[in-house]
């Protein structure tokens, strides 16, 4: 069977599985639609959370990011996992005890304020929509590259599949498809990683291989070898820190706090039966996430080494030390065709020179070799995962599997985000504010319509991404970190936090973060309207816009605490509510 047919078969089979699950799990109450009837086993929820969390970016782009950033990419590894510790220790068990359906609902009741609930709904919708655009694009890209269908057709097929299980099954359908999607994506991610690790180091476990020696008999550690190869071509050492420490510190903090505050992740912990399940389930979620997140550094480093060695075949500067363009391998040609790799023979020698021509010192010696600039004018980072199976000469079914895995990662995250958006519309806005007396049956219908509407909007934005789409992921994490997380945490841990303080804090976190991002990225992200160029010299104390979420969170805490001190204390029934969520046992049982 040729690759094309095989990919259709594998992807088709995975879609058939998701639709089969949808038929089996129809939601018949709002409780099932919003929180899967709170019947999800903690390990199953952990797996669903992992798929919910790991997006198209985690699956396709992260290893490439690590490959080119080296140590500096650690911020993403620590930032996107460390947030689960905060979630497990500070939020999940208490919000589960609260026992309602959405994150804004908790904020609204705890701070006895519609305004607070509205601010939370606003943050949730902005964060989730910016995030979902990326997933829809991911679906279109995966379809385009592996199945050679048009981008729009790919997005439309993805929408149709999500439609079937999310509109009918709600959280219940999404949960069980996410479990299946996790299995598909983790298998697709680890199989090529194991082969590459075996190939380079002789170790089957990538995490051990990354710390192992090269299997070429030289006895040199893989990471030392990689440092040597990249610095030999003028690139910065792989394992060395390049960015500023303060910025790395704050970016890690922003990603962690943002992760813990993202509503589509938090609501997953509303679906388990008990408070103690919410705690342990966060642990399981991180186990399943860590399998991919600790494999990614190995994939990144090994793929980078493979790429460098493919091009620089002999000694640096030797006449025949570089790969002749005519002899480039098959995968090189395949990915050139997609535009992800691009070569330009600047010195007309028919060979490929790949080095850092921004490094003045190395460029001088490169000149002496007769090199005339870096000739790999484009190496897209996504290629590190997408082309991996081909570079390692793996069988076609592995390549087909990577396609199914990328789609599973994008669809599972999209579904989780869409549920968060539609619940906020039908439960927080409609039932909570506009028509409080709506019957359960009508609310369920409304939630299905909201879901269908959200899918259409997300699909439309995926097909016609606004120019700023790539830049606004900073917004999603910034909003969650600066506004939602502090409000949730103070709602649980500070009994004296009142309505005025919480709202003032949320608005402070929100506006300061928006202002800081917009200042460097332009008003409404329109190019040319930025107040200052987005460069480290202009940043306040070297803090990049992506890293500002943690500062916004700090401002939120400070302002909320000060305002709460000078305004009326929360009423007695709110203090009792806080007492109640702090204790696992329910009032009726004690």
């Amino acid at each position, binding site marked *: 069977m040729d690759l094309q047919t095989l990919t259709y078969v594998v992807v088709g089979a995975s879609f058939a599985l998701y639709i089969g699950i949808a038929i089996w799990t129809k939601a018949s109450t709002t409780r099932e639609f919003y929180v899967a009837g709170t019947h999800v086993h903690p390990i199953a929820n952990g797996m669903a959370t992992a798929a919910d969390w790991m997006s198209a970016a985690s699956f396709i782009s992260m290893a490439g990011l*690590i490959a080119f950033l080296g*140590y500096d*990419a*650690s911020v993403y*590894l*620590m930032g996107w*996992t*460390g947030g*689960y*510790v905060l979630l*497990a*220790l*500070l939020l999940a*068990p208490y919000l589960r005890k609260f026992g309602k359906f959405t994150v804004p609902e908790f904020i609204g009741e705890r701070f006895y304020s519609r305004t607070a609930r509205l601010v939370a709904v606003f943050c949730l919708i902005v964060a989730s929509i910016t995030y979902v655009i990326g997933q829809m694009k991911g679906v279109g890209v995966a379809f385009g590259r592996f199945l050679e269908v048009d981008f729009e057709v790919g997005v439309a097929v993805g929408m149709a599949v999500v439609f079937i299980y999310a509109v009918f099954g709600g959280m219940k359908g999404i949960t069980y498809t996410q479990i299946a999607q996790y299995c598909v994506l983790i298998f697709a991610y680890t199989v090529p990683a194991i082969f590459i690790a075996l190939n380079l180091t002789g170790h089957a476990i990538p*995490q*051990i291989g*990354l*710390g*192992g*020696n090269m299997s070429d008999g030289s006895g040199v*550690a*893989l*990471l*030392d070898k990689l440092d040597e190869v990249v610095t030999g071509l003028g690139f910065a050492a792989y*394992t060395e*820190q390049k960015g500023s*420490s303060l910025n*790395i*510190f704050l970016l*890690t*903090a922003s990603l962690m706090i943002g992760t813990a505050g993202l509503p589509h992740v938090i609501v997953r912990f509303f679906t388990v039966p*008990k*408070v*103690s399940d919410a*705690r*342990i389930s*966060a*642990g399981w979620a*991180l*186990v399943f996430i*860590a399998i991919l*997140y*600790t494999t990614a*550094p190995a994939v990144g480093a090994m793929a980078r080494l493979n790429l460098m060695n493919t091009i620089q075949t002999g000694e640096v500067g030797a006449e025949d030390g570089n790969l002749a363009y005519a002899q480039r391998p098959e995968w090189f040609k395949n990915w050139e065709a997609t535009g992800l790799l691009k070569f330009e023979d600047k010195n007309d020698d028919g060979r490929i020179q790949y080095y850092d021509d921004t490094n003045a010192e190395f460029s001088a010696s490169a000149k002496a070799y007769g090199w005339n600039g870096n000739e790999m004018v484009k190496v897209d980072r996504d290629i590190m995962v997408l082309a991996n199976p081909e570079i390692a000469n793996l069988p076609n079914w592995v390549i087909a599997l990577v396609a199914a895995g990328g789609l599973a990662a994008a669809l599972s995250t999209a579904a989780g985000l869409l549920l968060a958006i539609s619940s906020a519309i039908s439960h927080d806005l409609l039932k909570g504010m506009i028509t409080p007396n709506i019957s359960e049956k009508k609310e369920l219908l409304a939630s299905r319509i909201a879901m269908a509407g959200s899918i259409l909007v997300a699909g439309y934005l995926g097909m016609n991404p606004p120019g700023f789409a790539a830049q606004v992921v900073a917004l999603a994490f910034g909003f969650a970190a600066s506004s939602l997380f502090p409000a949730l945490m103070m709602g649980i841990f500070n009994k004296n936090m009142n309505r005025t303080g919480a709202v003032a804090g949320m608005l402070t976190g929100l506006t300061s973060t928006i202002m800081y991002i917009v200042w460097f990225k332009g008003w409404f992200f329109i190019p040319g309207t930025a107040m200052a160029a987005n460069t480290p010299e202009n940043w306040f104390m070297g803090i990049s816009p992506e890293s500002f979420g943690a500062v916004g969170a700090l401002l939120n805490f400070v302002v909320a605490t000060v305002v709460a001190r000078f305004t009326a204390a929360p009423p007695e029934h709110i203090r009792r509510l806080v*007492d109640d969520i*702090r*204790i*696992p*046992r*329910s009032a009726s*049982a*004690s």
Partner: protein
Amino acid sequence: MNEQQRRSAYWKANLRLVAWCLGIWFVVSYLFGIILVEQLNVFSLGGYKLGFWFAQQGSIFVFVVLIFFYAYRMNKLDRQFEVNED
């Protein structure tokens, strides 16, 4: 101990445990993985430089263990202070 005192003792024990866990969380990621990374890179763990290992592998493993440890200790506290669910 009356109900009120028991609940407040439970909450204090919980806060102590959370503080310890977050202390470890901070040390393995921010301290070992970022602030002291250069100093730790002098040492090695197999073919890994130690600071680099904490930043890309070790901190994540510790996070996983921390959550399970917290869940286990909290279950014990729940029973000890008779606030458990069943």
